[in-house]
């Protein structure tokens, strides 16, 4: 029976339905509207999360095929369909999106005071776009969701953001625009070659070798910006700094994973030869990302900027892992994305907690918070340690598997990105010292209250997930195995076939 229910469409469009309700149904005074909007958004995203858990429960980890597949003709004469489905790669990104959204709603409960209804609508639309993007199995559908994600994000930063929000959205827009245009061109070329935009079909289509590199570069222009890879990362710190807390959480937690997901869904399976050619370049960019941005993070004076730069470094691990193309590295990359989604989201929430109280993110304005906020200090410590990859937290498993896998392919790359393990500890501990430890001297810090019950409710699930991911990673690694094995097998087969061809040609 479970096969007949269109689960993926339900969890994709339920938030949109909630948004429509907010727009059409909620009425009353401003305060009533604000309060009702919060509750509607919380319930909608909460129910969506619970429904998404059924997808996880119903997921069969033994097969690499797409599951929960829904296929409806959309533009049949052009071979474009409404095709949804998930595999071991996308499953947890769906869960991650539905998991973080209710927490974001809860975290914005008191922080957002103006245009609450519009804010909640933006978040619910954002959720629809994110989930749809990870479920889409048609390139056109994917493209719609992929670009659609940006619209609510622009609005969230541009309307509810900080002082330089217009500059930040402009920069964000400029970077993504160029990538999107090139990605669209790639879409057209692939469509003209294959005659369909169906992703599973495209995955088994062999694109001519001389096209592959160009298609790869066009796709990379879009994905690299999203990851973000060095040197197209500079939009991220600005966007994070200006975004409201919950916006940062989604930005770091889910949006950054779209690029890496794109590499895994399109570049690697569809363009294996170009992938093999570009591995060295990606490794080099990843190494630069890790070392360069770690050093830059060390110099930051703004908490959010520091964590934003650390995100770039962590995503450098991910890109290296994806292109190493060993079982451990790819699974590690997926795992790192999940744990980074939770951990960096949690770190931005940690910043949000003190920002709500003092309205500044400048590190120098803090110090000695351990005295007045012991619970906060504990939570922050846990996520900081997860961020530096302490074993026992989710951060370790991903980093370790990536480095282990990359080492088998390129010891030099593993050696260089492993320096991130040292540098990561430096900037995070330095941050923690300046904010939490030290003497409590500044008068306005003395009255700060520790975490409220609402804030505890936001952090508790995150804490549990981070520890769970660190102690019993099998829960999350298990469903990935079959899909990743399939991905790597396909890649190796394609390379071997091309090798055979070139030998035969000679």
């Amino acid at each position: 029976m479970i096969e007949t229910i269109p689960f993926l469409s339900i969890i994709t469009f339920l938030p949109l339905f909630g948004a429509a309700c907010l727009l059409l149904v909620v009425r009353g005074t401003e305060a009533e509207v604000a309060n009702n909007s919060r509750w509607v958004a919380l319930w909608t995203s909460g129910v969506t999360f619970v429904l998404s858990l059924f997808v996880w429960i119903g997921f069969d980890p033994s097969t690499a095929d797409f599951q929960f597949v829904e296929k409806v003709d959309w533009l049949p004469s052009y071979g474009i369909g409404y095709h949804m489905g998930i595999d071991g790669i996308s499953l947890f990104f769906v869960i991650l999106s539905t998991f973080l959204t209710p927490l974001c709603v809860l975290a914005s409960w008191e922080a957002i005071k103006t245009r609450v209804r519009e804010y909640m609508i933006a978040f619910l639309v954002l959720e629809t776009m994110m989930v749809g993007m990870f479920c889409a199995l048609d390139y056109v559908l994917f493209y719609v969701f992929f670009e659609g994600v940006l619209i609510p994000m622009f609005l969230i930063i541009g309307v509810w953001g900080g002082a330089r929000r217009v500059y930040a959205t402009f920069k964000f827009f400029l970077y993504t625009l160029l990538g999107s245009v090139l990605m669209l061109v790639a879409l057209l070329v692939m469509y003209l070659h294959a005659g369909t935009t169906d992703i599973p079909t495209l995955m088994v289509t062999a694109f001519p070798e001389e096209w592959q590199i160009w298609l790869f570069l066009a796709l990379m222009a879009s994905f690299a910006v999203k990851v973000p890879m060095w040197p197209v990362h500079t939009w991220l710190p600005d966007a994070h700094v200006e975004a409201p807390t919950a916006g940062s959480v989604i930005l770091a937690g889910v949006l950054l994973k779209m690029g890496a997901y794109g590499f895994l869904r399109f570049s690697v399976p569809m363009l294996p030869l170009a992938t093999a050619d570009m591995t060295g370049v990606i490794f080099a960019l990843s190494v630069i990302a890790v070392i360069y941005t770690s050093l830059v993070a060390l110099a930051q004076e703004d908490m959010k900027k520091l964590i934003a730069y650390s995100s770039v470094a962590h995503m450098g691990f991910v890109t290296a892992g994806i292109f190493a193309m060993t079982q451990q590295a790819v699974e590690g990359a997926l795992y790192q994305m999940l744990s980074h989604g939770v951990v960096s989201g949690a770190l931005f929430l940690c910043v949000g907690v003190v920002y709500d109280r003092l309205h500044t993110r400048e590190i120098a304005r803090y110090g000695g918070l351990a005295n007045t906020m012991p619970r906060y200090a504990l939570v922050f410590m846990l996520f900081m340690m997860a961020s530096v990859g302490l074993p026992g937290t989710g951060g370790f498993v991903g980093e370790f598997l990536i480095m282990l896998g990359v080492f088998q392919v390129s010891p030099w790359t593993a050696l260089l990105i492993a320096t991130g393990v040292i540098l990561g500890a430096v900037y995070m501990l330095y941050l923690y010292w300046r904010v939490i430890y030290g003497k409590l001297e500044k008068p306005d810090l003395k009255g700060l209250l520790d975490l409220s019950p609402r804030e505890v409710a936001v952090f508790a699930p995150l804490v549990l997930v981070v520890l769970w991911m660190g102690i019993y990673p099998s829960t999350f690694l298990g469903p990935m195995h079959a899909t990743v094995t399939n991905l790597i097998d396909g890649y190796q087969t394609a390379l071997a076939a091309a090798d055979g061809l070139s030998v035969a040609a000679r």
Partner: protein
Amino acid sequence: MYVATIFLPLLGALVVGFFGRRLGDTASQWITSGAMGLSALLAVALFWEVAILGQAQTIDLLAFISSGDLAVSWALKVDTLSAVMLLTVSWVSFLVHVYSIGYMHHDPSIPRFMAYLSLFTFFMYMLVTASNLIQLFFGWEGVGLASYLLIGFWYERKSANEAAIKAFVVNRVGDFGFLLGIFAVFLLFGTVNLEAIFAAAPDHAETTVNLFGVEWHALTIICVLLFIGAMGKSAQLGLHTWLPDAMEGPTPVSALIHAATMVTAGVFMVARMSPLYEWAPTALMLVTLVGAATAIFAATVGCVQNDIKRVIAYSTCSQLGYMFFALGVGAYQAAIFHLMTHAFFKALLFLGAGSVIHAMSDEQDMRHMGGIWKNIKLTYALMWIGSLALAGVPFFAGFYSKDMILEVAWAAGSPAGTLAFVLGISAAFLTAFYTWRMLFMTFHGKPRANEHVMAHVHESPAVMTVPLGALALGAVFSGMVAYDAFVGDGHTGFWRDSIAYNVQAGAEAGGRTDDHGAATDSHGAADAQGDAHAAGDHGAAADAHGAGVLERAHHTPILIKILPLIVTAGGILLAFLFYVLRPSWPVALAARFPAVYRFLLHKWYFDELYAAVFVRPAHALGRILWRGGDQAIIDGFGPDGVAAVTRWVAVQMRRFQTGYVYHYAFLMILGLAAFVSWRLAVA
């Protein structure tokens, strides 16, 4: 029962960590100390079953990471080696827990302190019972975390924070090597489970592997990388700088973590991996040299320090050097023996120093002490016991273990071993000197503290002195009692197959004397021939060959055996001369050789060097990359540049839109003229 032994401290830590404020200080102390005491009792039972009765086993708890060929579980590996470590760690930790009740009684955050101590103990347990390298790394990083938290326990102090971060980061540098070592192990063996690695090690005796563009002897590069991890954790020369600074933590922490247990994790790790090291003589030589260099380096610096805790810290560093060169010559058992005795007498010295500091109203500078032995006679006596054990005076614990190490270094017969012996003897002289310098400066002479402090000098309460007494028992008897089983005739029956027996070096001495400069001493060589692969089964192999470096060490010349005693006596006499009879002499000596004195006082300028080479450039580079790289270049030519160009073009274009009809008319005529001339030219 084994599981309870390991997890009781974690339980205590969690309960007190989360509910400590509600439970109150006394309940927190009782819960953590009680859980720890129970764990220590269980550890005795465990030691009996595992080490004495020989029931080694591995207990699987839970699946951990599995990805492709990599499959590891959470599992407890209890054999003789881990049982020895568990016994030592649990008892020292329990005694430190009890001592802390007294020492920390005026501190405002007692529950937090007790929770950290218990948490540390749990991580240390996980480290010593790991059955695979990833779990070992879990414990390894966990003790690092606990160390960071406890060094920075008084988090309001700037120096404590700096020391805590330094400890974590320097350890991370070591971990960097450790991690690469694990990756290389996986590359070579396809597994990270210890049993499987050890079983496969002999097959890879000749394997080479290409890493970082160089063709390496596989096991050598693996062992060197792992050793870098051990250097970080065990504060060996080059990565030692964090240990003296770690004395910023409360004294019980220094005793437990930075003397008795955590800093010995590196020694334990090398001993644990000894079946690999046995096949990597070059790596062993490196271990020997680094250990010997650390032993002498730290001893020289210890001679000029004025902070009582720093003297003991450098002493720890130096003693760890001894353990490493024992490992390096293949006498893993002797290293663990010294690890165990050292845990007792060094914890005793630290806690004794804590008792002195407590009595002196938190004064740590020995220049402000002196003449207090009459006021705190019990502490004074206990400090004497610790010092005698450290210096290796006969029949105290250090005598058995340290002399054993010096003898094996001699018996190894290799150039590195001989060098280690010479440096070790020199360090033994310095050890005796700085130890008695400390005793004399602290307890004898005229009181140099002010009257207010002197009026307050008092003996510590029983809750502190009783643990001291218990440690003193260990410092006196542990060497005597354990000698036979650890390094004497009974050692193969005791260790069984938990440690390698240096048969490889023996076999090499017989078979390939030219190779790698391993053992060349003729004592062991005679009957050490045969198939080197027999080393896979270490116990049997050792029985068959009977020629490990330990056996040879029992046959060293009498002069070698008594030389340590002679230099120790010399060191004590020199300290007596300098600090009791002629206190003006050391001052004059320092004035006479100011460069040498400054060099030692500044700890060979390691901190200054690292600050100049790593710390300041990293910060500066970060700022340059941010302002220059991100903001000026990437943004400048990227989005900001594009925006600026667009704006500039727009401004230029606007100039044409003047609104005057004659401007537009003029342009139209200009255009018409250009068009006509172009047509004419084409035609």
